[in-house]
């Protein structure tokens, strides 16, 4: 009986650690980015190489999760100052910084290494996403300029490009268009949050668009970027060669987005602004599904 006790104690410890580590990867955001990678791959409409495909999913997942964990490690002090994030395991002191750093490095190395083994160009694009996110966006620019979100957007655009690259074997124009759509969609997310939690960001000393250029300019930037994201995605869809029916669906969904974007500019309110953010997120999810068939 005594010999069994360490195992009995280990199980809850693993489960406990897993429960603590899970929020570090922002599972919803990571899943959405992973979906863009899958959509990027399937948008090629080539014969699916299932070995590549099934290796892409875990490698991309690990790379995205790794960069998210490293961001959490780097931004621990900022997260602790913000109401929205102060309960994260890193800022709440439930996991040590060293532990988070080690985990982030391990997960990232496995993800990037696996990606490079699958296909070197795919691996480089995946690595670029991690590098832009962790080093350029978080470590270098986030605390210096509100324009850092552009680099956050570029890193967020890498999974869809990576998926496309793995399918077609090169960086092509459609892949760049799809990446541009994600690049322009990400500001609707980050700028909406910077509007909603402007006090939080201000307390943490993070420069944001609202604190630098004001709320009206930020709302315009959100509307503008969501419209450009929709147009770019539509153009990519045409180029991919979606059916007339799917194109009609794109036009309808885009019209809804334009309507909300215009409302955000001409009849601004927090509610409309948040609705645009939610609609843009749904739009992007549907767009990913529509470019697959």
């Amino acid at each position, binding site marked *: 009986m005594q010999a069994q006790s360490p195992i009995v104690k280990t199980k809850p410890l693993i489960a406990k650690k897993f429960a603590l580590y899970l929020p570090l990867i922002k599972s919803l955001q990571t899943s959405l980015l992973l979906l863009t990678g899958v959509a990027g791959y399937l948008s090629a409409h080539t014969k699916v190489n299932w070995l590549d495909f099934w290796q892409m999913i875990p490698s991309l997942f690990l790379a995205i999760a790794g960069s998210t964990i490293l961001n959490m490690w780097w931004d621990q002090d900022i997260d602790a100052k913000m109401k929205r994030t102060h309960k994260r395991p890193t800022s709440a002191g439930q996991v040590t910084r060293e532990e988070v750093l080690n985990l982030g490095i391990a997960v990232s190395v496995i993800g990037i290494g696996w990606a490079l083994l699958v296909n070197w160009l795919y691996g480089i694009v995946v690595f670029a996403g991690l590098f832009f996110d962790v080093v350029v966006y978080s470590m270098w620019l986030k605390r210096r300029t509100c324009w850092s979100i552009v680099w956050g957007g570029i890193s967020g655009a890498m999974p869809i490009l990576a998926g496309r690259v793995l399918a077609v074997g090169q960086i092509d124009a459609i892949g760049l268009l799809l990446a541009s759509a994600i690049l322009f969609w990400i500001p609707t997310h980050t700028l909406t949050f910077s509007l909603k939690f402007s006090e939080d960001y201000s307390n943490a000393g993070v420069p944001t668009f609202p604190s630098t250029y004001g709320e009206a300019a930020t709302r315009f930037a959100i509307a503008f970027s969501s419209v450009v994201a929709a147009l770019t995605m539509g153009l990519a869809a045409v180029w991919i060669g979606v059916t007339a029916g799917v194109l*009609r669906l794109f036009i309808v969904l885009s019209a809804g987005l334009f309507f909300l974007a215009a409302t955000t500019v001409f009849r601004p309110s927090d509610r409309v602004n948040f609705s645009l953010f939610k609609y843009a997120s749904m739009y992007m999810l549907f767009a990913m599904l529509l470019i697959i068939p």
Partner: protein
Amino acid sequence: MKISSLNRILLFLTGFLAAYQIAIGIDSMDSTSITAYTIAFGVILVAGLLLIILGFEVLDLPIVVIISTIIPLTISLGLVWQHLASFRTVYLAFTIVSFLAVILTRSIPMQNNLPVIVIAITHGVAGLTIFLLPIIVTFQGQMKLPFALVGIGGALIGIEGLLLSYLKTGKPIVSRDTVMKNFPIMFLLTTALFVAGFNFG
């Protein structure tokens, strides 16, 4: 009034059906009918998504009266274009003029009953067209029996449109709560009838 999970599911299903109809269900039609039905089902799809995001409060916006006329007007236009070739130009003119009249009477403050009259005429004509035309062409043998479902959907959307419009004009026929509570299921039922009618008829 908070929107329940069940209502969110109903609205999602409504949007899904509308998306199906736009992407697949109208492929074999002529371009004007496709345009008309794309607008109609597009409004249903976007309205469903906005209701999921914003909740029932979105129905309180003044623009709802204008938007709610688009669905019956464009569906009836599509039906006339397909089945009443001799009335195409007349009905297209009616669609454009009545839609502009609705926009004008809702945009300019008026003390008289003109806005209500315009709404009643628009919904009345469009609603009757959607209700009667599919039933008539079905009984004439031009279309299969399930096409009559479009007519039943037309009756429902006519009722919904009038209830919403009278609510917005401050002269409600039934209470706001009743309209809101039953809106998602009515919306789904209407869309399902349209989609079934167009696809199986």
